[in-house]
């Protein structure tokens, strides 16, 4: 029997099953990076070869599927669905296909997660909400089924709420990263010498307060002598009238106005700012203004000439002709859902990818299906590709990816806003090193 079995030496130190599993892992990783068309060939030859269960992988995703926040939530859902489809087209993970069950996160984040666990899900993804994530993460630690959150990006999650996580992970860059990106962008594009005053219009909840706090901290460190905060307004989520804030901005005319508004609130604010001539009085800089791309109108975009972050992905950077995974993903989103994919699309795509590529690697290493503990360990420090580029799930469980920002402009070709002159910031430029809190880090500059 031993004569029929290829030796490890003849296969470069790998037995047949390990090699096939590794090939499967590579296929999954390649498909998720969107590069399968570049490599060619079929990836389905590994199905059923690894020592793994036969039944499909059950995954659960909670996201906002209705209401105002669905602008972001549906993008995340579509991204996750695309990633799952690509995994299955590549033959699954060691032959196991994935099935994704999506529920509306509503205000029931913990209930949704425990329901998934009760249903025997192998992995869970989501949520979008920061508050919901803070409520859910300790429960993830108690239940012990790995959750890779799409968003829920509040800075304090792994600095206070769950300081030493085991099963809870977050793919998307967290608040401090996009605020520091926005501050660097403001300084480099407007000029440190040109900025004496700043103002903020941010949503009236923990996320908006977190974002304003870190933008203000970063600006004070980046501009010699600091900056004066001349106005800070916190309109409610879904507010229909932002005239008060816009009038104040017009009165005080700050050099830079920062906004972490997202989705429909961006549209409301920018339309009313345009109508009241605000863009002539200040430079608008936002962390996720581009999340409203499918709603913004041409005249507003052109008049605003705003600088917007795009979290850890912008579909047009680098140029799609140089980076086919972006082109494939952009095309898939346009064809199937008729949307311009945003960073929230990547939130869903990347969360699934982080888990899938880690598991594919673990199957290769251990020669069987990994336990939740093994998956959790495997995710720590795990590096992987998506159409957005290379990501690392840090030892502290926070995903670290490049952060993107550019000038919002109108594209006739796309029929929607695009980002021009995009800058990419490496994680170490916009996030603290392991073991340092975000606030200590910024204050220590």
């Amino acid at each position: 029997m031993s004569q029929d079995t290829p030796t490890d030496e003849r296969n470069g130190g790998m037995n047949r099953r390990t090699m096939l599993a590794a090939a499967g892992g590579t296929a999954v990783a390649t498909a998720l990076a969107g590069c399968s068309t570049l490599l060619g060939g079929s990836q389905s030859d590994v199905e059923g070869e690894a020592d793994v269960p036969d039944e499909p992988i059950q995954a659960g995703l909670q996201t906002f599927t209705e209401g105002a926040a669905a602008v972001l939530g549906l993008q995340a859902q579509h991204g996750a669905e695309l990633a799952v489809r690509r995994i299955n087209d590549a033959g699954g993970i060691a032959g196991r296909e994935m099935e994704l069950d999506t529920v509306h996160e509503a205000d029931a984040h913990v209930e949704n997660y425990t329901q998934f666990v009760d249903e025997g899900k192998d992995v869970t993804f989501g949520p979008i909400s920061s508050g919901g994530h803070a409520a859910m993460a300790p429960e993830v630690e108690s239940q012990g089924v790995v959750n890779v959150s799409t968003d829920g990006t509040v800075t304090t999650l792994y600095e206070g709420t769950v300081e030493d996580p085991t099963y809870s992970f977050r793919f998307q860059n967290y608040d401090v990263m996009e605020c520091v990106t926005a501050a660097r962008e403001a300084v480099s594009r407007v000029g440190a010498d040109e900025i004496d005053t700043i103002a903020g219009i941010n949503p009236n909840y923990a996320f908006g307060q977190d974002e304003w706090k870190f933008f203000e901290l970063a600006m004070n460190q980046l501009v010699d002598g600091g900056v004066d905060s001349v106005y800070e307004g916190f309109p409610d989520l879904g507010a229909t009238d932002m005239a008060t804030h816009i009038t104040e901005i017009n009165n005080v005319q700050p050099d830079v106005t920062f906004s972490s508004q997202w989705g429909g609130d961006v549209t409301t604010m920018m339309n009313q700012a345009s109508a009241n001539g605000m863009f002539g009085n200040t430079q608008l800089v936002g962390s996720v203004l581009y999340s409203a791309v499918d709603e913004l109108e041409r005249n507003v975009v052109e008049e605003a000439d705003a600088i917007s972050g795009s979290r850890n992905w912008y579909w047009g950077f680098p140029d799609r002709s140089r980076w086919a995974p972006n082109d494939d993903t952009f095309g898939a989103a346009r064809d199937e859902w008729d949307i311009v994919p945003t960073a929230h699309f990547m939130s869903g795509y990347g969360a699934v990818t982080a888990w899938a590529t880690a598991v594919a690697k673990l199957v290769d290493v251990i020669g069987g299906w990994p336990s939740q503990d093994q998956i959790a360990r495997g995710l720590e420090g795990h590096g992987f590709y998506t159409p957005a580029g290379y990501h690392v799930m840090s030892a502290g469980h926070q995903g670290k990816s490049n952060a993107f920002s550019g000038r919002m402009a109108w594209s006739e070709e796309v029929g929607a806003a695009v980002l021009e002159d995009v800058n990419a910031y490496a994680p170490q430029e916009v996030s603290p090193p392991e073991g340092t809190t975000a606030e200590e880090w910024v204050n220590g500059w």
Partner: protein
Amino acid sequence: MELPPRRAALGLLGLLLLVAVPDLAKLSPGLQLRVVHEGVLFGLAAVGLNLLLRHTRLVSFGHAAFFGTGAYTAAVLASHFDVTSMLVLLAAATLFGTLMAGVVGYLSLRHTGLYFSLLTLAFGQLLYAVVIGRGYFGSSDGLAVRPGEANQALLFGVEFGSEVYSVVVYYLTVLVVLLSLLVMWRVANSPFGDALDAIGQNRTRARFIGIPVRRYVLAAFVVSGIYGGVAGGMYGLVQQHVRPEPTLYFLRSGDILFMAILGGFRTLVGPLVGGIVLVFLQDVGRDVTNYFDALTGIVLVALVYGFPRGIVGSLKAGSPFRRRLASLRADPSVAGAWLRGAWNAVVDAAARAGENLRIIIFGVN
């Protein structure tokens, strides 16, 4: 007051069901202990609200304030003061819920009817705004109820595993609910309860026969607030994280009121049943459709037209639902007569609407 054997048997069955929930939840992934538990707690708050609704006929739109006060008391003590004792957290939640009810009641009960309802709504929203605007309360992210090194509240200093913790807290809730129902039953059947009934029927007459109306109504309001406070405190222990939207927002007050009506506000345990059913419906609804919010509306419409006495009220002897059920059993052909009657009612209503429209457009002649 003696309990008829049939009702005692039903009560025992209900109690057995309540006790069996953790085991039943293990049998089906569709039934979550956490969801039933949440339903029981909101139902308990609705039992408190029902004291006002059933006896004094006052409609409060702000009962989430007491529920939220209880929940946030537990959360603040656990997060900022590292209080680990479950019983201390619960006692403090009850105390602060009671105090809040005293203050809100004192300020709201100067008015009756619509203005009372609006005032309770206003105080509830005021509390919500304060909590969401203050970093001390965790703003919209809320606060964890995970004190101490064990990362959980302890019962008599004992630390439990995650699954055991949820079952222990559930049985603690069952105990609290039984005690609360017993107290409410005594209150409702006491001279104080009769006085509240008299106040509900006619305030002026009640005052004329010597009942200190304002004092009694304030007492009833505070008692109902205690139920909200204790339920909120338990909610904090169950969820281990308290956020403003699910506990203090005015729609939560609406839910609590709706639970009382759904279960049957003229009954003792109806609001509790209403709480379990509504929370369960909302949870299942999310899995079935994106329009799950419409479920509440549909149930409300069905309730008003088909079961105006609520779930428990409709099952009681002598209710229109029971009468119809009995006549259907005696003669199934009566269903045809009902359908004909319903159709005739629709035709009549359409004819009346047409006639009204003719009068509006062309005048009486």
